[in-house]
């Protein structure tokens, strides 16, 4: 009896609440709130993944860098050791031939008709003995590990209509095995209301299982892989860098800053270009210095000071883009437009010659440099992001008046500004 009364109460509510006579009116502000939700960047990812990705990229970069510079025909450690050994062994024999240079304080040793220069102490002009440095670059940010909150498997095989009954005169009757009562939209006609009862209990179980969500709608693509709404961004970068012509032993520091424009046109691919002002100074020796001018006495050391505009065209492939973090690797070509190019010559053995030369008409070197970079970008808000980008610039051709093969490594810090508001639908 009591159960029947309870059932009557339940049915009373069910009947009235399932079929509101007047559906709640649509509010525009509710849609606005949802739109904001849809536009919001994703939650932050797990620290483990991106730390791993970043360290692997850094390791790769270091490894290739090491390979590249190791393969250069330079005085390696063993050779240097031999030379130093000879220096001490033959010090007495060559005493007469060996003297302190007025300029460079260097010891010169003639051995088997080959001339080798060994730097034994800090010179007066600032050349330093060979040093090896291990540079460790790592991000300091600590991110929370928040799991993805997606859902999967929204449909169920058991979601079959069990019973379908038609009633006239607007009578609403429930199917006997009902779990949820649903109106089928298209079959309502002539005051006939079709009721479909479904048992889709399984759906709920599936629905609560987390699964990776799809990319944000900003990554919508067309059939050809083009992004429907290309993402444009401006990036201001500043970078300290190391420049050299052979190995990075004895390389000199320079700076690089400028503005880049990037466009995400394809899915996961970003093309960027811009201009940066770069000051590059480096040391080289005569072997790497190729000019028509013939020195009477070859300088032992040449110091170059160059200022140029670097115009890169790079393509970056996005390996990771979750929540506020993006990680990409890229490559491209750079053109150098020289603004200033001057050289200082330093001689050993009290030899004399020209002390310096400023190139009167600096040249332009198109696509003479290959860029390799890895970029980590973190979005601060919907518009602004910051990035850290270790990069290498490898010579494809000889650069400058002296036709040197100039190579650069650096870490660019960037401030990004998204320009996508104009392209939003």
């Amino acid at each position, binding site marked *: 009896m009591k159960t029947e009364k309870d059932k009557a*109460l339940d049915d*009373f509510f069910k009947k009235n609440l399932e079929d509101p006579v007047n*559906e709640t009116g649509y509010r525009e502000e509710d849609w606005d709130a949802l739109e904001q939700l849809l536009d919001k960047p994703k939650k932050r990812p797990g620290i483990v993944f991106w730390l791993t990705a970043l360290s692997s990229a850094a390791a790769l970069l270091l490894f290739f860098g090491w390979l590249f510079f190791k393969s250069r025909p330079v005085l390696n450690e063993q050779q240097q050791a031999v030379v130093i050994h000879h220096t001490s062994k033959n010090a007495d024999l060559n005493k007469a031939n060996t003297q302190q240079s007025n300029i460079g304080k260097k010891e010169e040793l003639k051995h088997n008709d080959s001339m080798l220069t060994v730097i034994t102490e800090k010179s007066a002009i600032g050349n330093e003995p060979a040093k090896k440095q291990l540079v460790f670059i790592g991000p300091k940010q600590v991110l929370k590990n928040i799991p993805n909150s997606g859902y999967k498997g929204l449909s169920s095989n058991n979601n079959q209509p069990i019973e379908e009954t038609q009633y006239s005169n607007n009578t609403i009757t429930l199917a006997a095995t009902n779990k949820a009562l649903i109106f089928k939209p298209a079959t309502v006609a002539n005051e006939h209301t079709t009721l479909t009862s479904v048992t889709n209990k399984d759906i709920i179980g599936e629905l609560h299982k987390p699964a990776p969500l799809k990319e944000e709608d900003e990554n919508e693509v067309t059939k050809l892989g083009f992004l429907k709404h290309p993402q444009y961004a401006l990036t201001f970068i500043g970078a300290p860098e190391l420049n050299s012509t052979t190995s990075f032993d004895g390389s000199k520091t320079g700076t690089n800053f400028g503005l880049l424009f990037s466009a995400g046109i394809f899915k996961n691919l970003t093309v960027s270009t811009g201009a940066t002002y770069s000051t590059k100074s480096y040391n080289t020796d005569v072997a790497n210095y190729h000019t028509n001018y013939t020195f009477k006495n070859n300088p032992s050391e040449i110091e170059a000071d160059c200022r140029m505009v670097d115009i890169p065209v790079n393509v970056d492939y996005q390996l990771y883009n979750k929540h506020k973090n993006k990680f990409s690797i890229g490559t491209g070509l750079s053109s150098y437009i020289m603004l200033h190019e001057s050289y200082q010559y330093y001689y050993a053995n009290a030899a004399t010659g020209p002390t310096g030369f400023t190139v009167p008409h600096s040249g332009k070197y198109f696509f003479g440099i290959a860029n390799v970079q890895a970029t980590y970008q973190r979005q601060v808000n919907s518009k602004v992001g910051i990035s850290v980008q270790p990069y290498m610039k490898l010579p494809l051709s000889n650069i400058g008046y002296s036709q040197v093969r100039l190579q650069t490594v650096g870490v660019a810090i960037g401030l990004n500004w998204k320009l996508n508001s104009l392209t939003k639908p």
Partner: protein
Amino acid sequence: MGEEELHQLVQGCVKQDRKSQKMLYKAFYGFSMAICLRYAGNRDEAAEVLNQGFFKVFKNIDRYDKDRPFKAWLGKIMMNVSIDYYRANLKMAYTEDLESAEHISDGDYTDKNLNYNDLLDMIQKLPQAYRTVFNLFAIDGYSHDEIAEMLNINAGTSKSNLFKARQKLKQMILDADLRANNYNRDIDYISVVAINGVGIRPSFFNNGIRE
């Protein structure tokens, strides 16, 4: 909305087209709101849950099986996000002991002059824990074991919450009945003294007597 039109909208949503999303949202706003409203405490809360539901719909629309009724799928998601919301707000949910809950008489509810808004109002006045169980059991047709699993409570708690929900609802129906009867009596009385009482509320009249 016709099947074909719905299919096109869903296709648009699969492509994450914002216009299609808005059209789908508008088309099923009322249907979804009806579900969210009876699980939520008020309109704003319901709107928040509804948006969470549509967010999931748009993110997972490619998993929707076109051979099955869209409303069933949508309704299930709305129910699920409502339960999620309940879980997320468990700390805020409170349970209260019912005083004199045992002695509420059972009447015949079908003759009550109560409409959708009255009943929705009653459901929303229930404490969240009672409301959720009552919705799942009485309206959505789940068993206590299923509810226990969904809400991470035991079946005994589910039964107890359902019992308390029913008692409260019965009480509210009785109260509504009483108010309606008082109102009718007031009208009668007023009509005797030949005053048009249509615009006079019973509270106004009662206040006069107390003074």
